[in-house]
């Protein structure tokens, strides 16, 4: 173990840019996926323009098709607002947007602070712990009860599902595991429709969108996304931040001394980690991006992770510059479908950094296994399968 620590001392919190060469030379990469290939767009400007152009690059295709790897064979249900295009998209967004802005309220932030402080105090009593399962998953699940406004104890169920509830270790597409979530949601939606409360289920069940009452199927389509979209992403962001501070103790001290940079530090860590690598769109006409021809009814993906390292826009893109002042990253997407959970995720990370800076002076990595995604020719580190640390 000692030698691993020495060799890896500066490496574990490093997230290399897997796309640099292809981004500079061509601007795109190609991956095969179940005979429905995807052209990954790698430059920031192309990613933004394409995300903005929802008419030629749609999200409202066959359910599951804009996800890579494609989920068309494992689900029929449409995720809302994620797989809906304007103008309907806006009706759904307008409905849920105020709810997802609640993290800006002081009371909400207090609840999150209590959740996070308790968890840090809990792991501080241990000699060592595994971050992904024993910290990040718990934090993500407990914080989600605040976002949905459901009882805290629901988080115990979600934690028991484990890290791989929607994605199994060996096969990326495990229909059986997704069913755990679908069955759970059916049950909760039934409960809320019999006994409406002040949770997100009840809000959606009573909602009227474009003159039509939302169906249970649609409510489920929204709820799936708040579970699935906010799970791995938050877990990776939290875990990777801890790995970063383990290897950069001075950054944690700096946040304690200059709390006013916390917001910028969050944006920079989120830029650097890009917890969601890319997301697809289906093309509705023959077109081109960065002088590359793209065929009607094929797929492109918007590679947020690559765009965030584009040296045409970012100085020292491969460095974490904790107080980066201008930081137009796309980790939370861009334009129409930008992340609905971003306000919640940002608050979690802001409070996490503040509490770590208050309570923890030193983090030591004992052991770690990286999580490397394979996208055609690209191997991208997105986080850790597991990482054991001690807090002091």
């Amino acid at each position, binding site marked *: 173990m000692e030698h691993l620590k020495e060799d890896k001392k500066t490496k574990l919190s490093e997230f290399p840019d897997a796309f640099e060469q292809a981004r500079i030379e061509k601007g795109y990469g190609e991956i095969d996926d179940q005979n429905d290939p995807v052209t990954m767009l790698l430059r920031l*400007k192309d990613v*933004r*323009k394409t995300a*903005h152009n929802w008419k030629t690059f749609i999200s409202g295709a066959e359910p599951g098709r804009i996800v890579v790897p494609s989920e068309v064979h494992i689900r029929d249900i449409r995720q809302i607002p994620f797989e809906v295009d304007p103008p309907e998209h806006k009706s759904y967004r307008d409905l849920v947007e105020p709810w997802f*802005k609640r993290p*800006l309220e002081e009371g909400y932030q207090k609840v999150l602070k209590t959740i996070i402080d308790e968890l840090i105090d809990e792991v501080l009593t241990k000699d060592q712990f595994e971050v992904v399962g024993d910290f990040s998953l718990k934090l993500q699940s407990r914080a989600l009860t605040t976002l949905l406004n459901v009882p805290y104890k629901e988080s115990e169920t979600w934690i028991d599902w484990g890290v791989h509830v929607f994605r199994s270790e060996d096969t990326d597409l495990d229909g059986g595991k997704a069913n755990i979530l679908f069955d759970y949601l059916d049950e909760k939606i039934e409960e809320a429709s019999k006994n409406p409360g002040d949770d997100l289920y009840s809000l959606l069940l009573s909602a009227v969108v474009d003159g039509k009452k939302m169906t249970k199927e649609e409510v489920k389509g929204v709820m799936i996304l708040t579970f699935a979209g906010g799970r791995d992403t938050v877990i990776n962001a939290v875990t990777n931040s801890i790995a970063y501070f383990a290897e950069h103790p001075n950054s944690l001290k700096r946040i304690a001394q200059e709390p006013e940079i916390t*917001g*910028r530090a*969050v*944006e920079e860590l989120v830029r650097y980690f890009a917890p969601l690598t890319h997301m697809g769109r289906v093309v509705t006409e023959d077109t081109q991006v960065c002088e590359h021809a793209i065929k009607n009814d094929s797929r492109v993906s918007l590679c947020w992770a690559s765009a965030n390292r584009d040296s045409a*826009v970012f100085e020292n893109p491969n460095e974490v510059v904790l107080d*980066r*002042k*201008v*930081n*137009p*990253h*796309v980790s*939370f997407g*861009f*334009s129409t479908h*930008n992340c609905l959970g*971003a*306000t919640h995720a*940002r608050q979690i990370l802001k409070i996490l950094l503040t509490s770590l800076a208050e309570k923890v002076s030193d983090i030591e990595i004992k052991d770690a296994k990286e999580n490397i995604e394979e996208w055609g020719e690209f191997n991208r580190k997105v986080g850790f399968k597991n990482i054991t640390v001690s807090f002091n």
Partner: protein
Amino acid sequence: MAKITFITKDQESIVVEGTAGSVMELAVQNNVKGIDGDCGGVCSCATCHVQVDPASADKLGEASEIEQDMLELDDDANEYSRLCCQLQVTEALDGVVLNVVK
């Protein structure tokens, strides 16, 4: 000291005074509706979009290329659009009138 007027989408006029920081921060401190400042002012979220009243437009400098690139892909943007997290509160802004877009 600069006196800045925000006019929200529902035509409410809010006059605030500031000495330092960004215009976005000033708006958020004063609960100006429609300015959320989600990204804390690093030019990544566009939730601080304002349009400068043409009469006071000459009080402001040029937007940076990064800011212009963000605005270029905002459907509600016009020639008077700015992301107000990129505007520093200084004497020069005294009297400026900003229309909140969202």
